[in-house]
């Protein structure tokens, strides 16, 4: 897995009346974990889509480079996507395919043909070995979610992107998901970067080392671990304050 560095300068995403991002700067180093927080409409999803190589910014500069060297090989959008593993609130699974088949398909989409042993290992890791030959539409919510994460990491991505994965989960399921995501984040000896989009500050603090607070397409604050502002309560207050138009303490 080769690490990825993402950098943005004045990144804009707007069209006509809609301005999702109004010129933001950011840098995500290899192995970093960053949370993107904000209310609905803040631009979180738009930013994530740009990071994933799913959309093109309408203004500004966005660079992805493929090695630890900041001046290293620049990645085109279609190559950036090869490094990305994506988990959303939908599972991205095909109901008519078995767990194993879903994984094989996901791997093949990324140009890989994992061996039977490699797949068995992944299924084992996600406690899906028993149901490997069952169709995904027979799975419980928890099983489907595990398969969704397995799907996202089967091609050993160096960038894990999480788009509000905790939406609609009860406390217990949320905790289980969180520990699985922590395991994935810490996998690969710290070379894997993680970007979590959420509006829940608790999850942000648990999974990330710093946060980017967005409001109406602009960055309002960037607290990091070690700052007083980087705890669940403080972040919650900061979000409310930012929504009220005040500048939060950076």
């Amino acid at each position: 897995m080769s690490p990825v560095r993402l950098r943005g300068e004045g990144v804009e995403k707007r069209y006509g009346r809609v301005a999702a991002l109004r010129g933001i700067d950011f840098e995500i180093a290899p192995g970093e974990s960053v949370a993107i927080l904000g209310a609905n409409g803040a631009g979180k999803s738009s930013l994530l889509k740009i990071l994933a190589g799913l959309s093109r910014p309408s203004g500004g500069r966005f660079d992805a480079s493929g090695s630890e060297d900041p001046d290293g090989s620049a990645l085109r959008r279609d190559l950036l996507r090869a490094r990305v593993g994506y988990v959303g609130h939908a599972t991205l699974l095909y109901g008519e395919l078995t767990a194993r088949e879903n994984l094989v398909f996901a791997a093949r989409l990324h140009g890989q043909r994992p061996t039977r042993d490699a797949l068995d290992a992944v299924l084992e890791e996600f406690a899906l070995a028993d149901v490997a030959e069952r169709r995904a539409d027979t799975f419980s919510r928890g099983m489907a979610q595990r398969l969704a994460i397995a799907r996202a990491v089967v091609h050993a991505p160096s960038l894990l992107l999480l788009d509000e994965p905790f939406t609609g989960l009860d406390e217990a399921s949320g905790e289980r998901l969180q520990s699985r995501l922590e395991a994935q984040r810490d996998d690969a000896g710290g070379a894997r970067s993680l970007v979590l989009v959420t509006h829940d500050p608790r999850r942000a603090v648990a999974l990330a080392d710093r946060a980017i607070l967005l409001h109406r397409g602009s960055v309002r604050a960037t607290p990091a671990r070690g700052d007083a502002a980087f705890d669940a309560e403080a972040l919650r207050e900061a979000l409310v304050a930012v929504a009220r138009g005040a500048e939060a303490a950076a």
Partner: protein
Amino acid sequence: MNTALALLWKDLVTEWRSRDRIVAMTVFSFLVVIVFQFAFPDTEQDELTRLAPGLIWVTYVFAAVIGLGRTFATELENEAMTALALAPGTRGWIFLGKAAATWVLIGLVQVLTALVFALFYRVDLSVGLGGSVAIVACANVAICSVGTLLSAMSVRSRFREVLLPVLLIPTLIPVLAAAVRGTTYSLAGETVGIDLLQPLIVIGGIYLVLSFLLFEYVLDE
């Protein structure tokens, strides 16, 4: 290339397990054939034989629209479209795999429809069979390529069931005209030479290449 085969495999396997599209297209085709039977009740046999190529192709085109409308149906559940959008490399290969799967499925339905047609309209299909098959195969390339591209676009809209036919049918007019002409000759027993196939090959080629290239821009979010 690998990606295309993966999509082809995935679509055929999911179709085999659910049989959604095949059933929908086949039932629809049979219904259309029956409707025609009632629409032309007192027509003379030779009149019907003369009309047969046109009627067959009208049935084929509308059945294709139904089938193409469901090309991305499995992707819509669970937002699997995003998974396709996240695939690295040239997205045209995804298009190719999907179009190929549809080509297979439509072909199967067309064979069944042809048999029913032969039965109801007393059309002798064995006359010029090779030529007829060649014409249908070539026309299907055009239909499936532009159809898959437009299906991917209409799936993101309100009124997608109405939008796809509106977008697709104007593009299929040249295919229809050339295919009916070719089928008229093949069913009449004339050998189908390159001059009859040429329009279909040209249109199919243009649509295939254009759709492959343009598909790149369809999947972005």
